[in-house]
């Protein structure tokens, strides 16, 4: 991230509440369907960024680059929607029924069809979006074609714990207790003692991140809590559930983080693919502020904490923390090399905690019950509990709170009820597109960091996508690498070129040279700047290992 640009932004924004360039550009698309040079000049003027920089922003995000007609329909090309038929049949059906090509606008400008990943309605795939309405599941396309889209049903949620940590409506009781009885140092010590691991995928200890910011002597106005709500993993709708159905729990966790590290301001970065998140979060903020649970002098404690919501514009890599910070400030959502880490130079170049939504939702429990009680939740496994979500193939898809270490068989068979029509589970992709693929024969693997890593898989963010026995694994490789290549931010060379080359290898109508593919995957793993290029090889490695013949490697 350019220090000069951050300096320009920070000076320009000082006290004035300037909009970000990205917000201005998004508004332009909503207003007249595309970004014009006049919009770019205006965004530059309002944000304090140079015109060229704004031009770069306008070419980065899917929401800004796809042509839009008066009516804009989007089709989800996430992995759960793909798994529903084992193909992109729903995409072809949408193109045929609407008479507009994917990524195109009709000649009269009335209708456009775009691609989006992922709408988070993986429990009732395939999903489509008509304007602000997401419709999904059986009959959705017919309704959209008829111009009568219905809002899709939200998923069911359920906890397997006697006292849920995450599936419990937030009530600010943990914050009340902490403000009344704990010093910031004591709260930090509890979170560190709980060994709360980040739930966004990397599993980094949250308490350690907090401690870096806590010991920075900057005043509260110059420290920030940034919530990573950019749940881009196709097949995941965990943070969507939390942000839309339980936003108070997240706000409580944020305020606790602010209290522990001495920060007075927080941002939630949510996704444009989840049109209901920002309104739900803003309504919850308004409720909390009017109840005195957020804002100035919270509950009379003297501690103040303000929260603002910002929305992305379509980019998977923005889920990486440095890219997220760039996007939060309205820049291109590309990855920056660390150091410096956000804890040192984050939002506006100031010390910043970046935590995933679910990570922060664990904190109210820790504040209420302490580290010891938290550590007892999953005996012999990672402390705490985890939300998982199951895709449409399952009999009972939905969001479940489980103990770490729960066998996948229990998750898939007891909670999920197995697959529809009694179909065998051919494989599971766990933890998003960068997660390995576990054959159905290994369902006795425990759902935890180390056990999954031993099978070349990862816990990731906790999304579980099942593939039934009709799935063609070469087609799955094409699906995954198409996503990977499209979403590469383009900054580091191995990912920028390598993912396109990997896609070309599996797209070709020919056997794949195994040695050549493996050396390419190794290059991506070893050299990529972030987990996108470094992680995309994992599912391909699983396919080579378990289904070499189907993948067509020779």
């Amino acid at each position: 991230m350019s220090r000069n640009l951050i300096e320009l932004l920070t000076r320009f924004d000082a006290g004035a509440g300037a909009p970000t360039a990205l917000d201005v550009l998004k508004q332009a698309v909503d207003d007249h369907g595309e970004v014009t040079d006049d919009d770019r000049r205006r965004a530059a003027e309002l944000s304090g960024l140079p015109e060229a920089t704004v031009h770069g922003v306008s070419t980065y995000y899917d929401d800004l680059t796809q042509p839009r007609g008066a009516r804009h329909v989007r089709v989800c090309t996430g992995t759960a929607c793909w798994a529903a038929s084992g193909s992109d049949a729903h995409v072809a059906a949408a193109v045929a029924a609407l008479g507009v090509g994917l990524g195109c606008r009709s000649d009269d400008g009335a209708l456009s069809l775009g691609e989006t990943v992922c709408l988070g309605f993986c429990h009732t795939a395939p999903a489509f979006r008509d304007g602000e309405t997401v419709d999904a599941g059986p009959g959705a396309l017919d309704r959209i074609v008829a111009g009568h889209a219905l809002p899709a049903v939200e998923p069911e949620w359920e906890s397997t714990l006697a006292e849920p940590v995450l599936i419990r409506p937030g009530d600010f009781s943990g914050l009340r207790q902490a403000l009344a009885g704990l010093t910031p140092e004591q709260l930090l010590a509890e979170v560190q003692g709980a060994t709360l691991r980040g739930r966004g995928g990397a599993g980094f200890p949250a308490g350690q991140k907090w401690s870096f910011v806590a010991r920075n002597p900057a005043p509260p106005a110059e420290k920030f809590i940034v919530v990573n709500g950019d749940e881009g993993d196709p097949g995941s709708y965990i943070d969507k559930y939390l942000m839309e159905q339980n936003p108070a729990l997240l706000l409580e966790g944020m305020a606790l983080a602010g209290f522990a590290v001495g920060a007075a301001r927080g941002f939630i970065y949510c996704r444009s693919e989840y049109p209901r998140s920002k309104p739900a979060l803003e309504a919850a903020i308004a409720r909390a502020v009017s109840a005195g649970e957020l804002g100035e002098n919270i509950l009379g404690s003297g501690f103040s904490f303000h929260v603002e919501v910002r929305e992305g514009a379509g980019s998977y890599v923005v889920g990486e923390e440095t890219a997220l910070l760039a996007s939060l400030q309205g820049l291109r959502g590309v990855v920056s090399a660390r150091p410096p880490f956000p804890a040192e130079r984050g939002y506006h170049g100031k010390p910043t905690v970046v935590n995933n939504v679910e990570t922060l939702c664990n904190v109210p429990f820790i504040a209420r019950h302490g580290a010891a009680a938290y550590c007892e939740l999953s005996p012999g496994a990672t402390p705490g509990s985890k939300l998982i979500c199951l895709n449409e193939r399952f009999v009972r898809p939905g969001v479940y709170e489980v103990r770490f270490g729960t066998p996948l068989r229990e998750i898939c068979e007891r909670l999920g009820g197995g697959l529809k029509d009694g179909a065998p589970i051919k494989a599971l992709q766990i933890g998003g597109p960068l997660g390995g693929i576990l054959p159905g024969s290994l369902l006795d693997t425990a759902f935890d960091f180390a056990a999954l890593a031993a099978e070349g898989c990862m816990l990731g963010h906790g999304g579980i996508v099942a593939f039934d026995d009709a799935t063609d694994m070469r087609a799955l490789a094409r699906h995954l690498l198409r996503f990977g290549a499209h979403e590469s931010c383009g900054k580091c060379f191995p990912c920028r070129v390598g993912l396109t080359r990997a896609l070309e290898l599996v797209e070709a109508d020919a056997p794949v040279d195994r040695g050549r593919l493996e050396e390419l995957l190794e290059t991506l793993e070893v050299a990529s700047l972030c987990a996108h290029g470094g992680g995309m090889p994992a599912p391909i490695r699983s396919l080579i290992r378990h289904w070499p013949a189907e993948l067509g490697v020779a």
Partner: protein
Amino acid sequence: MSTPGVKLTMDGAELEVAPGTTLLEAARAAGLWIPTLCFDDRLAPFGACRICLVGVEGAKGPVASCTTEARAGMVVETQHALSRRIARNVVELVLSELPVPPAPHTELAQVAQRLGLDPTAGPAAARWAGVTHEPQLDHRHPYLALQHELCISCGRCVRACDEVQGAFALTAVGRGFHANIAAGLGAGFAESSCVSCGACADTCPTDAISERLLFDLAAAPDHRGAAR
């Protein structure tokens, strides 16, 4: 009173460097060669090309030397076999994206050669050959020519314009394989805040941006016309 230095071992030799020194800076000061493409010592490290990999004892894998600071007791191997093989693979990928081989005097061609690749072989010779960038020549500025198809997105021009000149006339555009650069709002240097300082052309490792005088001498006549 001087700050105590950081002692580390590099290729078997004991070195002492100032705190904050990167492994790449330490290696260069010791006269050791590490391949780079996105690095320019006038600019802040960027970490994009990923070919400056070195081995560090105890690390999980090769690390990018341009963005890794030297720490006391580090044992570094700049000729680390895995790092070099991966660096060579990355450069092979880069050669595969250009529609034509890079000119022999360019930094890309020289780095490729030094890593044992043949920079004149052309994109089809790469083990991972595939789509290449479409030729697009922007010839509208009186002093600067921009051949988009030669851009490898190293970001050096964008950073030179930002960090050296403070003109902010350039930006990265697009993403993934289609990432490239643009001046101003994409209408070329002449329509941007470019001050014609030439810092971008000077740092470019592929001649994607070059000075017109040199370009006109070298350019093939069939390369003209297209604009971006």
